[in-house]
C-alpha cells in the first residue's frame, strides 16, 4: 500500500461513492412505494427509520458531504491549474467536511434522541 493523502482521499471518495450508489437504489425503491399508497410507504419507510438506520443516516450524510466536497476539489483541479496546492486543498477540504458533517449530523442525532 502506498499511503498518502492522495490515496486516502481516493479510497474515501470511492467507498463513499459506491455506498451512495447502493443507497440510491434502496432510496428509489423506498420512495417508489409511494404509488402503492401511504400504508406501504410508511411500512417501507419504517424499515429505514429505526435508530440504527438513523445512525446510518449520519454516516450517509458524512458520505455525501465527503464525496461531494472531494468531488468539488477534483472539479477545481480539472478546471484550474492548482496541483501545486494539492496538499493544502486536501486538508482544507477535509476540515470543511468534518465541520459540515458535524453541523448536519448533530441535529439528526438530537432529533433521534428526542425520539
Amino acid at each position: 500500500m502506498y499511503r498518502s493523502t492522495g490515496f486516502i482521499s481516493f479510497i474515501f471518495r470511492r467507498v463513499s461513492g459506491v455506498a451512495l450508489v447502493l443507497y440510491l437504489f434502496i432510496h428509489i425503491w423506498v420512495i417508489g412505494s409511494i404509488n402503492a399508497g401511504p400504508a406501504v410507504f410508511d411500512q417501507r419507510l419504517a424499515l429505514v427509520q429505526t435508530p440504527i438506520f438513523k445512525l446510518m443516516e449520519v454516516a450517509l450524510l458524512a458520505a455525501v458531504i465527503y464525496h461531494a466536497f472531494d468531488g468539488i476539489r477534483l472539479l477545481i483541479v480539472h478546471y484550474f491549474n492548482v496541483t501545486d496546492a494539492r496538499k493544502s486543498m486536501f486538508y482544507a477540504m477535509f476540515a470543511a467536511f468534518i465541520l459540515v458533517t458535524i453541523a448536519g449530523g448533530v441535529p439528526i442525532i438530537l432529533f433521534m434522541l428526542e425520539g
Partner: protein
Amino acid sequence: MRLFRMQRFSAIALVVFMTIHMVVVHYPPFHIDFSRIIERLDQPLWKGIDIAFLFFVLVHALSGGYAVLMDIERVNASKRLLMGAAVLVGIAAFVYGSITILAFHPPAAVVVLP
C-alpha cells in the same frame, strides 16, 4: 471522454441538486412522512426538478460504478457486458423513478393493497 464528461457535468449538476435536496427534503423538520412528500410532489415544478435530479444522479452513479469496475484489470475483458448492464439498470431505474414521480396523484389513483 464521454464518460468523463458525463461524470463531471453530472457532478456539477449534483452539487446544485444535492444541496436543494438535502435542504428541502431532509432538513427543517427532520422528518419524512407521506404527507410532506405528497405536498411537494404535487407541484409540477418539483416534479421537473426531481426528474432531472434522478436523471443526473443515475448518470453519475452508473458512470461512477462503471469506472470503479473498469479500474479492475480482470473486468476489462467484459466491458461491453458491464456497459450494457449499466445502461439497462439506468433505464429501468429512471423509468421506475419517473413513474413514481409522475404517476403520483394525491388522491390515491392506484388501488392500494398490501
